[in-house]
């Protein structure tokens, strides 16, 4: 049995980790949070320079032609370091939608730019305070044009183009809209995690290209992305666990290290268990994504639910372990607490993913 990343993949992970530590990615996340810039352009340029955006893009489109396992290990490190860049929007969602779309000219036109980072893409899906479904999506596609309004579009204000879900008369498909097209209005939206920027994007008869035409394609895009988001969440969860442990070891109360109190030790053990379960489920997701396994919907939902739970547990209990200091602006705990919420919201709520998990098991009966 070889249910583990290869030595090369682990080396790539190590390179990514050291690079992001050296570049003080967490500090940069704080700078974005406190400043005006929607993302860290300098870090983004260096990530591109490292080749991370090109990882899973085939060589014929200017990519490195590596696999999804490589992308998974990079995602974990980006999550661990809170990298304030449009990586997830552009790589897990926009790139994947085009790569698996039906339009060859879109692949030619966009993938090389996505590989070199010259282009940033965003996925525009949510429309209101409820989960998008095949029935409630109001954006419409007709005769090559798209109309409607999307909200909470991550990186919507910095994207060069959008992948948009819209009704096409028979189902909901995926459509590519260039940001320079006529009839687009973008408004930045304030969020709980300003280290990542969000916007509402309105389309008024904006010209577009059809990438995929069915709701199942939308779900497939979300499943594929869910595995990669899970690795970001896993990295974040583990970072919180490590922070909590380090702080507890050095903090003294009642004449002893608070890490010697069972109340704290058991809290850390619970975090460790949550992280280990999430890691194991993430690996299952990585295997399914990298092998195009029929189990992908189950594996993706399992990884997503498990990693969301682990990050929630670890980010809130990290603050708790820090006591009052954990509630200050000065300490980094809140950066993770915010990012945990941002990643949990990004591709749909925990309740929806749990429902999807059970639905996929009902369909597959693969237990």
């Amino acid at each position, binding site marked *: *049995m*070889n*249910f*583990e*990343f*290869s030595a090369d993949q682990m080396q790539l992970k190590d390179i990514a980790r050291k690079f992001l530590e050296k570049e003080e990615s967490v500090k940069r996340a704080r700078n974005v949070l406190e400043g005006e810039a929607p993302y860290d352009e300098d870090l983004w340029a260096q990530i591109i320079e490292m080749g991370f955006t090109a990882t899973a893009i085939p060589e014929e489109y200017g990519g490195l032609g590596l696999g999804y*396992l490589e992308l998974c290990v990079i995602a974990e490190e980006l999550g661990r370091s809170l990298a304030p860049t449009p990586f997830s929007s552009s790589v897990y969602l926009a790139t994947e939608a085009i790569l698996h779309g039906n339009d060859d000219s879109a692949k030619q036109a966009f993938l090389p730019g996505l590989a070199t980072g010259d282009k940033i893409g965003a996925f525009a899906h949510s429309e209101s305070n409820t989960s998008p479904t095949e029935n409630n999506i109001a954006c419409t596609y007709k005769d090559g044009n798209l109309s409607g309004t999307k909200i909470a579009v991550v990186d919507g204000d910095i994207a060069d183009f959008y992948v948009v879900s819209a009704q096409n008369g028979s189902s909901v498909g995926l459509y590519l809209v260039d940001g320079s097209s006529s009839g687009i209005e973008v408004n930045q939206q304030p969020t709980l995690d300003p280290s990542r920027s969000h916007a509402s994007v309105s389309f008024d008869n904006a010209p577009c290209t059809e990438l995929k035409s069915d709701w199942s394609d939308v779900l497939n895009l979300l499943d594929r992305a869910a595995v990669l988001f899970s690795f970001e969440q896993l990295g974040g969860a583990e970072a919180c666990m490590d922070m909590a*442990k380090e702080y*507890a*070891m050095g903090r003294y109360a009642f004449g*002893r*290290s608070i*890490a*010697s*109190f*069972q109340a*704290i*030790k*058991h809290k*850390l*053990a*619970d975090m*460790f*268990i949550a992280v*280990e*379960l*999430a*890691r*194991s*489920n993430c*690996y*299952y997701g*990585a*295997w399914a994504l*990298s092998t195009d396994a029929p189990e992908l919907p189950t594996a993706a*939902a*399992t990884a997503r*639910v*498990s990693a969301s*739970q682990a990050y929630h547990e670890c980010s809130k209990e990290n603050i708790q372990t820090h006591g009052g200091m954990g509630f200050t602006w000065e300490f980094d705990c809140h950066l993770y607490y915010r990012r945990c919420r941002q990643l949990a919201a990004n591709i749909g709520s925990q*309740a929806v*993913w*749990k*429902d999807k*998990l*059970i639905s996929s*098991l*009902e369909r597959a009966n693969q*237990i």
Partner: protein
Amino acid sequence: MDFNDTPEEAKFRKEAYDWLKDNAPLKEGPKDSWRASSEEEGLKEVKKWQKKLHEGGWACLHWPKEYGGRESTPIERVIWGQEVSKFKVPGGYLEIGQGMAGPVMMMYATEEQKERYLPPLATGEEIWCQLFSEPAAGSDVAGIKTKAELDGDTWTINGQKVWTSGAHFSDYGILVTRSDPTVAKHKGLTFFFVDMKSPGIEVKPIKQISGGANFNEVYFTDVKIPDSQRLGAIGDGWKVSLTTLMNERLAVGDASGPDFEEAFSLARGQDLNGKLAIENDAVREKLADWYCQQSGLKYAKYRNISALSRGETPGPQSSITKIVSGNKLQEIANFGLDMLDSAGILRSDEEGAEQSMYQYGFYGAAGIRIAGGTDEILKNIISEQVLGMPQDMRADKGLPFNEIPTGNK
């Protein structure tokens, strides 16, 4: 990343499967497991099967060949476990002897004793039990009081042990005693093996909350043990015990009983408030949580097997598995009974019935969360041994054992 065997592993797997195919019936389904009609019958069948395993060279895989083992690698043990789980074969009764007593004998007994006692353990002819816990020493097992006094070359043992599985049908037992109450808790212990038919040993069953009696109390009244049956030096009993306690945690592992599959299948067939339970969102959410836990444990195990396959040391999986699966079982059992609404309180005594499966889980899980290391002790182990956090401060540290507060219990 894949789930495939190496060529050597595949060869071993085939060899194991082929032998099993010739010697045991395949299971007809995942829940088609062996069950004895009585303890006496079970013991007989287990001994018969163990003899067959031994003759085929499949007994005590991890033991040296000279004592009846196979000298298999850890990954081969895992593969054997996977293959044997496909067959309907007898189990139980021998794990404590082969998993705990055997290894401690190998480390501390004389060559003569090893030659006498180990082969019958491997062939299943002799059964051993473990005499550690006491009424006042559970999680703090080093706090045992059973007294051992040396006179010449004979020890006299007085005291009481508890939670001893299989004491009533065991031939021998491994025993930890207090030989010096005037030194610190961990320092005054001495370890022995004892003939369970010795005069002065009395075994009484403990009635559990399930009504069954799988464990015993064992009373020692002036029981004589020759000094030649001491394992390790006088006062070194704690060190000797640790060898077996680590093995116990490995042996307990996954909680058996209804799991996600059963709960899922129940929800798909059971009416709840006018519609199928599976259509209820609260039910779906619970099911999703249990699936994620089950899947996480399954793939954590695969990661550990992969580590073994590469010759690396696996992670702290047994502690995590025990905590998660014990709690999951308790929740699933409660769910299964809750699905029956008010009728969930009615007891079903029908063997193998769905309802009785949840009832067994309801009682059993409460015990699983305690046996072989409580949830709390396992969390201490994770935080101390994996995360490197400091030990809790101990009120009994450095005190002579006979001055440690006991709360008169």
